[in-house]
């Protein structure tokens, strides 16, 4: 924790997280660090605990034990609202969009701008900016979401999560419902988010997607971390072996040492161009 660069400091670090539902222990002693500007993929068999882990971060479940540190501060995340306030945005599989409303209304749902009467223009302008930033191909922000394709809807849901300019964006199976072209769209979007300095947590079943975008892969098995892989040395076979439990890489894998990440770190801009992310500025200022 002695690092001075915020790239080397985890934004979120989860330590010894355990969670059980009745007699089922969904998570056992899970450690996880998340850094800015990276894509972390969580993979694992059905019931390995991926969703539970993410829900702990999203404030849906409270962990039974363990600590969550957010930017060096121990925090508790009792509710989804608290999670959002910290700067953790979650896009669940069902997207939770209101189909009858247009894109702008959906993006700002619950966070409308304007005092008294809504400031449609500013919202629309921000929507365009946001969508442009995500290179989204949406013909009009004034179309009801119902008329959009699956990929576009996914984009809107992801864009919505970015409204509060979160540090961590969690995507639960974002490509599960999409065709090939749309999947590519969403994967591009994920890389874009990373390049703009967000930390993206990706839950996916699709190893091709994971290999395409992930910087790190965390394998969960029966509620434990069963393997950690870094981008250059991602081996498909190893990941599979780790998912099925043949390989147990957890013991002996050094906890992600930021210094090891550094060599390939500068290759990517860790802040959005112009350093305009307020969160990043706040953190920089604090140091």
């Amino acid at each position, binding site marked *: 924790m002695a690092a001075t660069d915020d790239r080397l400091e985890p934004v979120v670090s989860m330590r010894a997280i355990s969670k059980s539902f009745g007699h089922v222990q969904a998570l056992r002693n899970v450690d996880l660090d998340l850094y800015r500007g990276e894509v972390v993929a969580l993979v694992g068999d059905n019931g390995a605990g991926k969703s539970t882990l993410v829900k702990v971060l999203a404030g849906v479940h409270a962990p039974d034990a363990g600590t969550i540190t957010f930017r060096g501060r121990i925090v508790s995340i009792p509710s*989804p*609202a608290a999670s959002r306030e910290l700067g953790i945005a979650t896009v669940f599989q069902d997207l*939770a*969009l*209101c*189909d*009858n*409303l*247009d894109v702008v*209304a959906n993006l700002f*749902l*619950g*966070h*409308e701008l304007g005092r*008294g*009467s*809504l400031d*449609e*223009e*500013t919202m*629309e*302008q921000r929507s*365009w900016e946001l969508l442009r930033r995500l290179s989204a191909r949406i*013909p*009009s*922000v*004034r179309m*009801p979401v*119902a*008329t959009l*394709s*699956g990929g576009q809807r996914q984009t809107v849901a992801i864009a919505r999560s970015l409204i509060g300019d979160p540090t961590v964006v969690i995507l639960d199976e974002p490509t599960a419902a999409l065709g090939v072209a749309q999947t590519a769209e969403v994967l591009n979007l994920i890389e874009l988010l990373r390049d703009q300095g967000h930390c993206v947590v990706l839950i996916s079943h699709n190893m091709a997607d994971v290999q395409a975008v992930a910087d790190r892969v965390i394998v969960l098995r029966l509620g434990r971390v069963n393997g950690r892989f870094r981008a250059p040395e991602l081996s498909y076979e190893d990941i599979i072996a780790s998912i099925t439990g043949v390989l147990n890489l957890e013991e002996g894998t050094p906890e992600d040492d930021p210094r090891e990440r550094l060599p390939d770190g500068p290759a990517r801009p860790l802040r959005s161009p112009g350093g305009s992310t307020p969160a990043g500025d706040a953190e920089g200022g604090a140091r």
Partner: protein
Amino acid sequence: MSRERRGTARDLPDPSAGYTLRDMVSGFGGRLRDGELGSLPVVVGLVVIAVLFQALNPRFLAPGNLVNLTLQAAPLGVIALGVVVVLLVAQIDLSVGSVSGLASAVVGVAAMRLQWPLLVGIAAAIAAGAAIGAFYGFLLTRFGVPSFLITLAGLLGFLGVQLVLLGPSGSINIPFSNPLVQFANTWFLPPWAAYVIAGVAAMGVLGAGLARRRRRLRAQLPAEHPSVSIVKAVLLLGVLCLAVWYLSLDRGTAVMPVLFLLLVVAISYLLRRTRWGRSVFAVGGNPDAARRAGLPVTRTLVTAFMICSAFAALGGVLQAARLGSATTLTGSADTNLNAIAAAIIGGTSLFGGRGGAWSAVLGVLVISAISSGLTLLNLDSSVRYMVTGAVLLLAVIVDSLSRRSRASRGRA
């Protein structure tokens, strides 16, 4: 009036092409091809109705009949406006008739028996309505009883209260000298005032359009060409002036329909331009998403029911004023169905989240035109019932089918 609706921000056509008159027309055509018919069928239906009845009885489109029609439509329109709000949150209120009847009785009792000041009586009636709505909202949100059942019980219960208030005679006459009755029957705008109002409305549309254009340009968004606003305003002015002129051939423009239109504008503003309105649409469209987005779902539902019942009460007051009496028949029989039918015919979906305040205007015009036409043809209430019922069923079937086709095209 229906033209203005197209200009609201929600329905703007593709901005990438810039907003010109041509885009507006072509965008409209595109929506038609997509099956998003909007209010077109209703407008066409209205024209068909007008032509049909005019052919059967030339008095139908006579100024005198149209003045009557505006007077007749206003109270029902106010009730339908409330129903629109409740439908938007994907609920229903089957008791608007009873509540309007109750309110008319309250006003009658307060003004005539208790000799309260008139405004206090009206306020009491509307407050009673709002309280009833709050009660419905409470039962719905706290206990999860389906709204159609609660309001079905309310339909019966408040009918009873109405009868109790009216007492054994079953009616309270409000003398013609009473300002309330005069308001509903003899208050007409002087022609100059009517033209001024038409002018103000057109200027309002123009001003709003230009202001929006200015704001959009400032926000570096594509904006309509000023010509669009100007054409819209001119068209509106033309239509309104024509209407005022035509009505002035008889008694002129009555105050009550103007009041109704003002309420529609107000509700339309609340629905389109405020957080509350946004949450109404969100709750009606996807309550789960609304809840997760942190919107006050319970509060939205309760306020929607309160508005509905309060408007039903106001509608009842106007009805009593128009008839000059509060009787057991006020708000009975078909008021309920007419109001619900008007809202759905006007294009508000029974399944929530789609529609708007202006649908109450369109719907109530259709319903009132039919009933007025049938009356002119000396067909009695029975046929009117059947036609209204059939029109309601038709509207709901169209609504159901379009929902299913939207669903099958992934636009649920």
